[in-house]
Structure formats: C-alpha cells, structure tokens
C-alpha cells in the first residue's frame, strides 16, 4: 500500500504521515511529481492556509493536470482533508472569488461572525452518512476535530455527512473514488484512525 500526499507547499503533513504509520502504512511519500502520483494506491490532498493561495500553487505546479490524470482518468482513490477537501469543490469566497478543482458540486463560504464564533474550532459531532465506505463502522454523532473559518455547502447529493455549526455544512463526502473531509482525521483520536483506516481498506 503506497500513499502519496500531494505537496503544494502548504499544510502540516507530519501528523498525517505519523497517523498512517501508526496504521501500518509505511510507504508514505510527499510529492509533486506525476510519476510518483501514478505509482500511488491512495492519494491525499492536505491543506492548511488560504484557498486562493493553495489553488494558485496547485495550478502553477500543474498538479491540477496530474490529479486529473490519476484521479479522474485512472480513478485512484483521493481523500481531501480540510482545505484539501474544499479545493475539490467548485469555488471559494476566501480572499476574493476563486474556482476549485470542481470534482464535486460544492461552494465554500465563510461562517458569519455575528452568528457563531469564528473559526469553528474543536471537536464537533457528525451526522454520519451510512452509505459511505469512508464512515464505515463509525457511529452516528461521532466527534471529529475541526478548525476552519470557511465551510462547504452542496446543492447536489454528493453522499455527504453533515456537521452543524451555524447551519448544516459538508463535513465529509464520497463520490466514487473521490472523497473529502472538512475535519482532521489525523487529529481526531480513535474516530479519525478508523476513518483513515477505512480510506486505506475500503477503496
């Protein structure tokens, strides 16, 4: 089992690597090369920071083309985490309007400061979608760790699991080989370990 973490110069990937190691996945590579992507069994798109900056990094390194090849054409399983999930959507309003990779119907906007505390930080419960391989064995209302100021909504059925903060937003989705989670499974104790194990075992 080889996992490749997409390197676009952003995000704390150390904890993702150590979590995968804990799950006995030791072949973990951080890379921005097409050749390495093509050798992967699983691909993870991480992300911390701002959407506009991230998508412009991705495009300038041609990672959008590479991901198109391995994720869309070759159907390798992809997991986006936090900002990495948001990048898989249509657009974000973070620091101006930017389009995303548009693999799923999802639009990213900011929480409203007068409604709730922003950022949304801490463990929050998920309305678990039982149709999802990613959430297999994870009980409804399980707690996962979030830290973000922007969140995704979708007008389509993207097989989403929801979290409520101000309103229901996309906590996770799964469309074929493409999935994403807004929370950090690598920082979510046993629940997160199970979710990452599912991504390794079930796809």
């Amino acid at each position, binding site marked *: 089992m080889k996992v490749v973490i997409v390197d676009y110069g952003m995000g*704390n990937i*150390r*904890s993702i690597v*150590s*979590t995968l190691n*804990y*799950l006995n996945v030791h072949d973990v590579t951080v890379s921005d090369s097409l050749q390495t992507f093509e050798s992967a069994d699983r691909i993870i798109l991480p992300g*911390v*920071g*701002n959407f506009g900056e991230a998508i412009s990094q991705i495009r300038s390194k041609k990672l959008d083309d590479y991901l198109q090849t391995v994720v869309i054409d070759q159907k390798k399983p992809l997991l986006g985490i936090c900002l990495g999930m948001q990048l898989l959507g249509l657009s974000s309003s973070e620091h101006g309007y930017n389009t995303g990779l548009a693999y799923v119907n999802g639009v990213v906007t900011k929480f409203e*400061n*007068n409604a709730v*505390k*922003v*950022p*949304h*930080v*801490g*463990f*929050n*419960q998920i309305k678990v979608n039982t149709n999802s391989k990613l959430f297999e*064995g*994870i*009980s409804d209302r*399980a*707690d996962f*760790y979030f*830290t*973000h*100021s922007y969140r995704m909504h979708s007008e389509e059925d993207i097989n989403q699991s929801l979290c*409520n*903060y101000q309103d229901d937003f996309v906590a996770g989705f799964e469309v074929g080989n493409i999935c994403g989670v807004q929370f*950090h499974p*690598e*920082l*979510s*104790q*046993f*629940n*997160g*370990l*199970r979710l990452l*194990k599912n991504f390794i075992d079930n796809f």
Partner: protein
Amino acid sequence: MLRKRIIFALIYSDGNFMQSRNFRLQKVGNLHWLEKNYKFQNIAFALDELMLNASKGEKNMLEFASTISKLVNDVFIPIAAGGGIRTMEDADLLFKSGADKIVLNSLLVENPDMVKEIIKNYGSQSVVACIDCKLRDDNYEIFIKDGSLKIDYELKEYVAYLELLGVGEIYLNSIDKDGTGFGYDQSLIDTVNRITSLPLIIAGGAGNESHLAQGLKIENVSAVATANLFNFIGNGLPNARRQLIADNENIANWNFNNYSNT
C-alpha cells in the same frame, strides 16, 4: 454540537518540564520523567489538545522542536506550541516539527507585522494569542515576556487589537491564579468573555476536576486548560474526563470501540 475542550499545557525549559506558580518555575522532570509519570500516549486519549510552551531561558528553538517531535509521536490530537517565537523561521520549524498551531505572546506587541505574515501563511486558525494578566487595583494589567514586562494596553483595548490582527483563538491566563490550584479567575474570564467573538481558552488556577467542570460550564468559553503537572499525575486526566462525561459536560466522547487495533 460543538464540544468544549480540555487542554493540557506543558511548560518546557532547558530540557525539563516545569511546574509554574504565579509564573515562578520549578523543575519537575525531563521527557523521561513525563513518559514515566504520565504515560503520554495513553493520557493523550483523554485530552482534546496538547499545548507546549517553552519558557524562560529556553532559547534553543531547535532543541524545543525536537522535543515536540518526540512527544507527539502516536498522539492523535492537535498540538499547540509556543514560547520565544520571533521569526517566520521559528514558526516554520515548529509547524514542521508537528505543531498544528502556534502560541504567540510577546511577538503580538513587538512585531505585529510578523504576526500578520504568519497568519497569512498558516491561517488564523493556526495562531493562538496568549494573554497573561494580573489584577492590580481592580484593573487587569497585561504582561509579555513570561510575565516580566507590563504593557500599556487596557485589557478590552488589547482584545480588540488582537481581533484586528486576525488571531484565531485567545488563551487567557491569570498570573495570580497560575499554579495555585485555587480555581480559575472568574472575573477575568467574564471581562474578556463579554467582549470577544474569538474562541476563548481559559487558563490559570485549575487544580482539580471540579475546577475544570466549573470552567466548562461558563457560557462561550471554548476550552479549559491546566498546566498543573502535580495535581493530575498518573491517571488524573483520564479519570477527570471520565467523570466529566458521566456528569454530562459537553466534551467529546471518543468511541474506543470505533478503533480496536490499539
């Protein structure tokens, strides 16, 4: 529902973990001591977050970073690290060593442009602003540099300043209550709670589980922290969490059955 958090804050100085009382530090033990007395990988399963603060005299950022990376192996919760961060390189190093967020104090006042730069690179949610306060003549004074230098801001004015800077959370620490085990400074908390829209972490004074419970019950407080190495030794933290969950406090309850390969 968004859960409240329990944060264990470790104070680190020159290779040792310290017990602080009113910001005077006493050496407790090294990483080996911590492993032996806290069995860290187990304890971490009772915490929502771990905070590591390098304190007084700790100038060696590389050594601090290496301690962080040793400590966080097999710990699947967010790690906040701070103390002595002056440059982007300092911040980069801590993030690379396993920190998910950094904690800033002196830099907030001394170099706000650098703070903005860090926020631009890592996002608001990655920056925690630590406010150290002391009550004098019915007025809260704010200190930087490990409590050694008073700054001229009024508390309310300072909170507004931090919000404008764009920090993600406030870690509000009472120097008067620090390490006493007498409970949190309720009036300090109320003062800041009324005016901030940022997630608020309260610190200083928690000596037992009932103090944590009192803190968790305060509306709009996002997290309760303790740095008391003596009072929660052994299974103190797991036991406290179990009791708080039994008492229906709003904290995460990880289903141990969801992952059995441990």
